């Protein structure tokens, strides 16, 4: 355990939140994508976070070691179909299959991710200042 592990913890938080921002960007970019089959349609993606527990660290350190991204899951919400016979991607019946991205959800997700990212940056900054003050001890 050292003060440096706070940088690791905050860093893992920042990495996780930027993964989340990445998926939001991908979802928003593909909000209007269409496909000719329901299977081929874009599904909204979301990262899965989990806390990292360190195994029996030195001195029974049970504080944990940040957060990790276990994987990216795809939304199982229904794929909306639209009747657009003029669309070059339309199937034999004239339907195209749009993505199941909900832009409002994505925007809320984006704000939440950016706030959490800022929190981690603040933690890092404060820790850096405290370390600096500790280094200057006795001056």
């Amino acid at each position, binding site marked *: *355990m050292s*003060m440096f*592990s*706070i940088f690791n*913890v*905050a860093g*893992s*938080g920042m990495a*996780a*939140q930027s993964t*989340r921002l990445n998926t939001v960007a991908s979802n928003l970019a593909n909000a209007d994508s269409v496909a000719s089959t329901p299977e081929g349609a874009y599904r909204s993606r979301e990262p899965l*976070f*989990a*806390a990292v527990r360190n195994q*029996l660290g030195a*001195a*029974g*350190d*049970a*504080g*944990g*070691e*940040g*957060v990790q991204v276990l994987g990216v899951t795809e939304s199982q919400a229904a794929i909306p179909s639209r009747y657009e016979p003029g669309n070059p991607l339309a199937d034999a019946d004239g339907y195209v299959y749009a993505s199941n991205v909900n832009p409002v959800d994505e925007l809320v997700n984006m704000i*939440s*991710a950016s*706030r*959490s990212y800022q*929190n*981690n940056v*603040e*933690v890092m900054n*404060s*820790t850096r*200042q*405290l370390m600096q*003050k*500790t280094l200057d*001890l*006795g001056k």
Partner: protein
Amino acid sequence: MNPSTPNLFGIHTRALDLWQRRSEVLANNLANADTPGYLARDVDFRKALATASGAANGVALETDAPGQIGGAGRSAEALAYRVPTQPSMDGNTVDAQVEQAAFAANGVHYQASLSFITAQIRMLRMAINGGQG
């Protein structure tokens, strides 16, 4: 202050250790603010400091061989789960504002301990220099 004691800075070095430990725990809470099912934790400072300064009468698990696994350390004993202010759908009990406030307060306490130590150093230096420098 008795200069012959092994620890010149008294309780402040231990307090500093604990503040640092606590800031690590709080940083963890903030990093896991969006993790489903994560339970926010905090250090019970009174208990931890009592243990660190030997006031508690608990008996630590002895390990006399390198392969043995000791009991959970002092720092682990003093860790407690935070009581959530409001329930959330995903079982996460981190309240970002509460954690931020605790982290800020923790930083101030850390600086307070630091300034106590600085004062002690200044006093020692004055004693060494005989008030000349």
